[in-house]
């Protein structure tokens, strides 16, 4: 079946601009996660959705970052007033509904964001 998809695959923007990154999870997966991977590092947690609501947004670095999942499927990560330090690969993952806590997260290909 189809995996997690993310668009765009690459995004180049200028400092100060607004960007939106999209994630389409595996069909039927109610849990959705965003991670950020900087060069030479492992992915770092940003935000977790269970259904439509953000259950934990503690990983968002500041209030320029925001994410939504209005219908419990597709999610959009929004970054306002981008800074050069926001350059990274943004990864989305999804997993089945929590049941006993044994879900595996399946990752998308990521969006590589470059802020000039």
């Amino acid at each position, binding site marked *: 079946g189809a*995996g997690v998809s993310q668009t765009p695959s690459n995004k180049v923007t200028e400092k100060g601009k607004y960007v939106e990154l999209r994630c389409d999870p595996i069909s039927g997966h109610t*849990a959705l*996660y965003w*991670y950020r991977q900087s060069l*030479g*590092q*492992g*992915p*770092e*947690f940003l935000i*977790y959705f269970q259904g439509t609501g953000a*259950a*934990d947004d503690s*990983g968002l670095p500041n209030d320029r970052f925001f994410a939504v999942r209005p219908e419990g499927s597709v999610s959009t990560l929004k970054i306002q007033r981008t800074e050069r330090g926001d350059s990274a690969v943004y*990864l989305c*993952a999804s997993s089945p509904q*929590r049941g006993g*806590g*044994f*879900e*595996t*997260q*399946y*990752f*998308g*290909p*990521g969006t590589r964001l470059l802020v000039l």
Partner: protein
Amino acid sequence: AQSVSQHNHHVILSEAASLELGCNYSYGGTVNLFWYVQYPGQHLQLLLKYFSGDPLVKGIKGFEAEFIKSKFSFNLRKPSVQWSDTAEYFCAVRDDYKLSFGAGTTVTVRA
């Protein structure tokens, strides 16, 4: 929150050599542990996982990992690597619902 340490940043070895990548996590209790692999130009894929039971876990492509609770470790092994095992390998621990990843180990296998 959990943290994960991967001991090697870059490993270079020849085909047919044995591979072992170290991974330690920060504290005990019930843990779910994962190894993910990222082949060049591809996305993160699950290699294997440990939730409970037998501490020796078999994964895809001949990989295995051993969970040693007393050492807070989950090392990855493969007895004989192939050129196609060239990739970046990430160890991760599930901290409630989110994953905490190590910094990754780049493995280069020379033909």
